[in-house]
Structure formats: C-alpha cells, structure tokens
C-alpha cells in the first residue's frame, strides 16, 4: 500500500470523525430551532464568535465521548517498523481487518499519533472541567462570606489567597506533584479539605432556602449528605465500600494541585463581585425583610453574579487545560504512558526539528480547544452584556 497524500489524509480523518459531525449537526439544529426558549445558552447562537467557539469546544467534547469509535489503533500499541513514520504511511504488516494507515504518522516508539491525540482529549476533558468546578465550589464558598461580612475573615482569607497566587505555579507543581509527596499522604489531606467544600456549599444552599419547610429541607440536605459523603469517602480516602468513586493516587494529586492553584483566583472574583452587589437596593430590601445572610448570599447575590462567573468559568477551563499541559510537559503527574496532550508534546519535543508531527498534533489540538473556550467566553460575555 502507498503512503496517503495530504488530501487523502484529511478526507480519512474527516471520515473517522463522523460520529462527531453527526452529534454537532444534531446539537446545532436543536439549539438553533429552540434558541428563544433556552436563555443565555440560546442567545449564544446570536453571536457568530460564540457559535464558532461553542462548535470547537463541542467538537472536542464529542471527540472525547466517541473516542473509542474514532481511534484507528490502540493508542498504547507499538507497530514495529513504523518508528517516526510520516503522516499517511501504511502499516508494514496490518492485522486482518484492522485499519491499515497511520493517519498522522507514528512517534518515536512507533505508536499511532492520531489515536493518541484523540484519546488525549478524553484525559484532558475528564480532568479540566471537573477541576474547574471544584475550584469554583471552593472559591464561591469562601468568597461569598469574605465579601459579604468583610472584616477579619476577609483579611485572613484574602491573605491566604494572595499567598497562593504569589507562588510561581511551576514551582508549586514541582513541589506538590512528586511521588515523594504521594508517600507522605499530603495530597490526601489536601483532597480531604478541598472536597469538603462542595458538600458544605450544597448543604448551606438548600438549608438557607428550605429551613422554613423542614420536610423538604431534610429531604434535600439528606440527599446531599448521603451522596456527598459517599463520593467524598471514595475520592479523598479511597474508602468507598461500593468502589464506584475512586481515584488513582497520582491522578488525585494532579487534580488536587490544579484545584488548589485555581481556587484563589475564583475567590478573588467572587469576593469582588459580592462587595459590589451587596450595596444594591434589593440586598438591603432582603436584609430589611429579615432574610438570613446565607440566604442573601446564595439566593440573592450569587444568581446576580452569574454572568461574569460563567464567562470566567469558560476561560478558566482553558487555563486549567494549559496547566495540565504544563504538568505533562514537565513529565509530572499522570503516568508516562498516558496519551494526554502535555505528555505527548514532551515526548515529541526531543526529535522536534527532525520529525515534528508527533508533537505538532497534540499541540494544535490543545491550542484549538483553548481557543474555542476563549471564543466561547467572548461570545457569552457579549451576549450577557446585552440585557
């Protein structure tokens, strides 16, 4: 079999991404048809920038979901004789019925670059949004009271936040994401502290809203506590009796470090917005009605701060993706075999000036995802400012 031309490579890749195209077309048709009923999400489809950004992001989300169908080879398998093969080259001895081409070539240990790039999206999209959600939980739970009450609490928390922000990120990663640290159990304690915040957040959220209606309150708070503590025991201490919630210690370490680095930024934004919003009349009205401080914070102030927070959420997922890539680039964290984009770039850079394709593919993938998130954030900002 001959080597494919660039045109054939692009056509073949487009064909492999078929499930993604179908899913994208369905998403866009449905969203545009019902866009007037979908709130801020629907308005996104009025802005071309937002639509392009959303498209790119969803492309990678669907790629991560359908990765098993898209990949042409096992991302960890090595194909003898194909070391550093150029894009489009045929396999030397393909198995019966297996895919016969290395669409984007092979890397320095003869693994398929295309399949690794596709699988890498799964690693990145599993960690980055989840870590960002946790960072938001921590930032919101601490930022609301700091901004609302002010005083000593604010001074103390702000000092801590600035302390973390003043830390050079790479130094922090080099100190926190090492096998030695895993041995001391520090990541577990970090996780134990950071993973409490989502539970606290939801308990206060439901309690402040429904404490006048004990039956409903007990139902919601109870559900949160049961699910929360179940997940908490599994994720932080790996003690889940049913074994559904668990996290590899290395992955936990990476996750915790990324959450830790991100939450002070969220804290600062939330605190600033609360300080601004708490001077509004409707907050004063709530206070006069005798509403509790937590009710005002969570059900009056927070919903009114949602616009900038959603925008920041999109930007921050991009930033987290960059951070994860940085970790991979320095060979920290997840296992060296892992197909995540940062590690693949790190693998490929040693031979960069001779065979650039193993590093270029994940580099462009990472860049396009972050770019998509930034465009999406821009579109959201534009649309949320309109009303």
């Amino acid at each position, binding site marked *: 079999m001959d080597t494919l031309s660039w045109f054939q490579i692009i056509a073949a890749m487009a064909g492999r991404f078929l499930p993604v195209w179908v899913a994208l077309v369905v998403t866009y048709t449905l969203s545009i048809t019902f866009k007037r009923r979908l709130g801020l999400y629907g308005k996104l489809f009025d802005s071309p920038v937002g639509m392009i950004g959303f498209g790119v992001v969803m492309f990678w989300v669907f790629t991560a979901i359908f990765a098993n169908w898209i990949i042409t080879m096992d991302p960890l398998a090595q194909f003898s004789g194909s070391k550093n093969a150029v894009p489009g080259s045929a396999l030397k001895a393909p198995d019966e019925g297996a895919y016969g081409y290395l669409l984007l070539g092979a890397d320095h240990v003869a693994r398929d670059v295309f399949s690794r790039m596709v699988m890498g999206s799964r690693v990145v999209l599993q960690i980055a949004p989840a870590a960002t959600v946790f960072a938001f939980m921590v930032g919101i739970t601490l930022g609301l009271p700091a901004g609302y009450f002010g005083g000593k609490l604010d001074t103390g928390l702000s000092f801590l936040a600035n302390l973390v922000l003043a*830390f050079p990120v790479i130094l922090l990663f080099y100190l926190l994401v090492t096998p030695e640290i895993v041995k001391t159990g520090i990541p577990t304690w970090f996780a134990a502290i950071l993973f409490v915040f989502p539970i606290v957040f939801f308990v206060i959220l439901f309690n402040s809203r429904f404490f006048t209606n004990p039956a409903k309150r007990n139902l919601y708070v109870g559900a949160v506590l049961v699910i929360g503590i179940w997940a908490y025991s599994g994720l932080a201490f790996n003690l889940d009796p049913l074994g559904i919630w668990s996290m590899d210690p290395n992955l936990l370490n990476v996750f915790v470090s990324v959450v830790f680095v991100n939450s002070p930024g969220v804290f600062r934004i939330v605190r600033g917005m609360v300080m601004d919003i708490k001077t509004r009349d409707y907050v004063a009205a709530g206070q006069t009605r005798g509403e509790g401080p937590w009710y005002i914070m969570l059900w009056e102030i927070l919903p009114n701060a949602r616009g900038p927070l959603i925008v920041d959420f999109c930007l921050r997922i991009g930033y987290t993706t960059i951070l994860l890539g940085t970790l991979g680039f320095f060979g920290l964290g997840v296992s060296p075999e892992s197909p995540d984009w940062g590690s693949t*770039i790190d693998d490929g850079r040693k031979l960069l*000036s*001779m065979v*650039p394709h193993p590093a270029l593919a994940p*580099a462009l993938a990472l860049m396009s995802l972050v770019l998509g998130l930034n465009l999406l954030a821009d579109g959201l900002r534009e649309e949320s400012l309109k009303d």
Partner: protein
Amino acid sequence: MLMFILRRLGVMMLTAFALTFIVFSLTNLQPNLEKLAKSEASVRMTDDQVVSWIANNGFDTPMISRYGQWLGVVPGWVKTMEDGEVRGRCIEKGADPAAAPVRCGLLQGDWGVSTVFKKPVSQILGRSLGQTGWLMLAVMLVMVPTALILGVLSGMREGSRTDRVLSTGAIITTATPEYVSGVIFIALFASATVGVSPLLVHLGLLGSPDALFGARKTLFMGTATSAMDHITFWNFALPVMTIALYGIGYIARMTRASMTEVMTAQYIRTARLKGVSFRQVVMKHALRNALIAPFTVIMLQFPWLLNGVVIVETLFNYKGFGWTLVQAATNNDIEMLLGCSVVAVFVVLVTQLISDVGYVFLNPRIRLA
C-alpha cells in the same frame, strides 16, 4: 502614601516568610530527605543507615529550627560524631570547628551548596540569573511596545476592521501556551525537513555561503544553547518570540479595553468638537490615560513570565534560571531549589508592590491617606 507603602511592605515580608517556610517544609519532607541520603551517600543503604545519615547531617532537628538555621537567625547545628569529629552546619569539611561562624544562612549570605552542580548556590544563581536577564530584557523590548501599539490601534476605533483583526489575533495568542507556540515555531522555522527552511533552501535564499540568510540549513536555530556565549538574532529570536507572544495578546487586550473606555469619555468628545484632529486627540488626550491600566497588567505579567521562562529555557535548552530550577527540582537538590524559590518569590512580590505603588502614583483619582 508612606503609610500605604509601609503597610504593603509589612504584608510583603509576612508573605515572603510564609512562602519560604512552605517551600522549606515541602522540600524537607521525610521522603525527600531519604532520597537525598541515598543519592548523596549510597543507593544501597539500609533503612538504619539512612536514619543515621539524616541525623548526622543535622536534618533531625525540628523543622522550624532548621528553617531558622537556613535563614540564619538560629545558630547552626553542631554535633560531635562517635569518632570525635565535630560536624556542623557552618563547619566546612576539614576546617577548624572553633573558627567557624555560629550562624550561617541567608542573612549571612550563605545560600548553601548545590548537590547537583557541586558549587555554591549563590554562584550558580548569579550566573543563571544573568542569562535569564538577557532573555527577559529582549522579551520586554519586543513585548511591551508591540502590545501597546497593537492595543492602542485596535482600541482607537472600536469595531473597525483593524480592531476585529487585531482582537482575533490577540485571542489566538492568549490561547497558545508557550510549549505549544515553541513547538510550532521550531517546526516552522527551525526544522531542516519541514516548514519554511527547506523552501528557502530551494529558492537559494538559505544554505549556501552567499545566500541572503546565511549558510545555515535552517532559518532560525532550534536551541538557544549557543546564545549563552554569544547572542545573535538567529539563535535568540525563537525563544524571545515564544515568551513574548503570550504576553502580547494579553497586554494588547487590556490596552484595547482601557483605550476604548477612554475614547468614549466626555473630554475626548469635547476635544473632537473643538476641532482637534483625531491624531492629536489620540496622541495628546487619550494615550496617557489609557496606559494606566496596562501598566499594572505589565507588572503583574512578571510572575507569568517566570512560567514562560521555565518552559522556554527547557524547550530551547538555554541554561538560565528556569533551566536551573527544573534541574534542581528533578534532582531533589534542596538548597538549590530553596535558592530558586527565594528569587522567584522575591520577583513576584516586588512586582506586585511596584504595580500597586505605580498605580496609585499614575492615577490622580486615587489618593490614599
């Protein structure tokens, strides 16, 4: 104003102590010390030997006291071995114990000895900071003017075609972390097989002694190792561009935002109605006010530049501060890593202070008692 600066300085000192203590305790964790013992003495040590090595080298005292010794406020440890030899933190091997100073730490100018480079930490830091200094200087010279000009150009007439093109460009660069742009640059400009260089060789502009761009096989060089002795455009352009690119987009966006805000202000309209030309309005009235906000951003960019420096120096093999930090961290070189963190923390805190004070200084609307 003075009180403000003093209070900021106080908080800064507190932050510096807290940060160095965190770094100190994280580098001096028990597993790290065991690893150090094994790499310094012998890999095949038994657990007992490791414990006694740790004790004999003064790592068995409480963390806080060791931190004090490292700072130089607590007297260095002194121990008499079983064979009668007196060892201590401040006693050099073979030197007379009685003549050694009592304290030796940061305050005394003693930064310790690097276990990887086998040289005093201060000496290595001095050399590598010098190298990084040149890199940063070049980055600043490229980044700040470019970013400000682009930002002002796009903010001058909001919504124009220039503005749209430049804004899109700024978004793209901020979405490109250094390890991505570096990889793309090397593949494009510094590879003999793909990108621009083979094309130029084919056209006869590169690769022969009388060619326009010189006799090299590639347009730019993929490593900056040679730049440590002799900086040329060809070995330094790619690392500088890689670091500058990310910052350019970010600062340009901030400048644009600030410029568009100023351009809608009343006094700009008044000036225009008075008949002042658009050029004059931009140069005389708008520019100065529009540059206050970017100043803060540029200053706060330094900590991020530190990140960029670490990535780029690793990627281009330029043995400056970032490269040293990575070497120290990967080889568990405790004293070296502590030295690097002191420098990093110092840089971050000083730029924060300058940005705060500068902001107050530049903006006449803010007056702090």
